[in-house]
């Protein structure tokens, strides 16, 4: 039993999506509970991947491969999870890079790390218009809205989004976090965001605190 858990963890770390699918099926055949596979093997493995990436013991392509393996594992597990458990997630996160800004590597890293530890993430991409953020908050009712910017001339869209949410009485329904190269804690406070992450690891911890 422990062997298969260890093997699942190992193959997640190695980013072997095909092997993960096989191992998940094997684990089910051996009688492991689907939730146990998720909670004792897949998610802890992705936590470890996230930690290694934070310390740059592994690099972004390695983490992305691990994330693909994780997705393959959870998709294989999905039919075996009960209806109530099929989408067990810690919370819904909406992410995007603000209007006028086409830089998204930081936002993408945050997305993968959040998904890896069990959050459901909807990524709106880059150059997201102010009102698209607002419409999506209204439509999807996320726990967290995360906005990223690389330029001082684009991060000014963050308070615009917040104001539009306030004007529509939506601000109190969602926690807002911000990040990106020029963004600092005082900026986050000034514009009325609920939190700021210096890097992807901090962003994940921040989301965990806010979603509790």
């Amino acid at each position, binding site marked *: 039993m422990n062997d298969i858990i260890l093997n699942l963890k190992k193959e997640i770390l190695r980013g072997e999506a095909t092997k993960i699918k096989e191992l998940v099926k094997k684990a089910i055949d051996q009688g492991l509970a689907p939730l146990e596979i998720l909670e004792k093997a897949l998610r802890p493995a992705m936590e470890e991947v996230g930690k290694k990436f*934070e310390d*740059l013991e592994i*690099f*972004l*392509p390695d983490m*992305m491969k691990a994330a693909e393996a994780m997705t393959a594992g959870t998709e294989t597990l999905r039919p075996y999870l009960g209806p109530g458990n099929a989408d067990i997630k810690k919370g819904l996160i909406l992410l995007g890079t603000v209007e*006028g*800004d*086409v*830089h998204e*590597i930081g936002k993408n890293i945050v997305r993968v790390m959040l998904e890896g530890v069990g959050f459901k993430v909807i990524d709106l991409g880059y150059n997201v218009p102010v009102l698209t953020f607002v419409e999506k908050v209204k439509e999807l009712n996320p726990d967290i809205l995360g906005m990223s910017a690389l*330029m*001082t*001339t*684009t991060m*000014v*869209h963050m308070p615009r989004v917040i104001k539009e949410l306030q004007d529509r009485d939506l601000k109190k329904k969602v926690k807002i976090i911000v990040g990106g*190269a*020029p963004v*600092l804690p005082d900026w986050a406070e000034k514009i009325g965001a609920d939190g700021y992450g210096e*890097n992807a690891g901090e962003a994940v911890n921040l989301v965990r605190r806010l979603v509790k």
Partner: protein
Amino acid sequence: MSTPYRLWEIQERSNTGPQCDEDEFLSKIFSPTLQKIVKKYEIKYNPKTPVPADDDLADRVWKAGWELFQEVGLYNTDTHRIIKVSDDEIKEALYVAKDQYWVGAGKDAVLWKHRKIEDREPPFCLFSPDCTCSEELHYSMCLAYLKEPLLDGFCAPILEDSIGLKIRSGSPFEINACTQHIYNLRLAAKQVGRPGVFLVAVGTAEHDSGQIAVSNENWGVRTTDSRLIGTLTEFKTADTLLNRVVHCAQYGCYVGNLTGPIYGGWCGGSEGVAVTLVAYSLNGLCIHGAIYNLHFPFHLNLASNTTRELLWPIAVAGQAMARNSKLLYKSGGYTNAGPMTEMVFYEAACHALVSTVNSWHLWEIGAARNKHRNRTTPLEARIAMEVGHAVAGQGMTREEANDIALRLLSIYEEQAATAPLGKEYQECYDVATALPTQEHFDMYRKIKDELSNMGIEFLY
């Protein structure tokens, strides 16, 4: 543009090149290709030798960079097509490229020449604070930098506000700010007696509309000046960037190719960064029509490039390009520490030393990871440029540079993640006179003496 008649043939490839979904480009094309090429050419990073002296390694990195550019191409995020350049086109562009250009105007014009490894010719010194700054300090900072004796060219700090209003990219506020930016620059250059100095401008423009609005021989960016055209990380572009290629080619100003490959990101480790630097240089030449490259590889977590995992690719890529091309390329520095700390001077010195000995020209220096407003001053750039002139003048070898780099790294490397933020410009410069405070100058002088004791033979 080094091959002007190919401008439209290459632009058209945004419409006709191979189609690829954006999500797939980096994970399925760029990253696996880079990993395969690094392995094929047996490129291996050695942290014990931040400045290797291995010509064969340099030549392999050159071949690897060429192969990467040719195989991967440049992805246009607006059309979801890949712009590819053939082997013959790369060869042609390298042949046609000049190894020297006159930049700037009148008495302030400077001949900027290709450098070789351990070259005794000093590097072209482009001073650039890179950071954003308060509107009320912008003019003073321009003056302060333009007073620097070793300055061959200047790129001013970036405005965040203009006439008290926040600048929003792509909006009228940005165009207004770009006008203010270039007026400040041109007036400051005139006031210090360098009216024709080579300017790289305007950094305030994120959007192409801001850049294009200030092309003007009389009051704006001149044809003797330069624009930077960036690439999205990694090997991606967009029409807003390619618009600048066409504008600059037709306006007639110099183009610099701006790239910042990320250590720990899609490039992977130091080996991938080195190969990517070479590949980006070919991209700049063939697609952006750049006469020079400004590369600022940086660390994913630290956002700096003065630690050994970044110095190594800077050294190796410089050697690769020096041995195999006649290109012009600048090494852009980002320190961890902020102004008026001893650490920032050591970091600046180390970045300049490694870059200069390995054939780069200098673009110095963004302090405090270039993240904090007003937190850069000319003095840390000055020490970098003085080191550049010194090590070129004394003909420092790669082996000697490696020894000194290791000594410098032993002073600051462990503090990279916890580096002091230092002070803001107005805390260590007199804003009215645009001169450093005595305390700031004394610290610079002290570190310069220490560097001298390490074997750097300053020329004055």
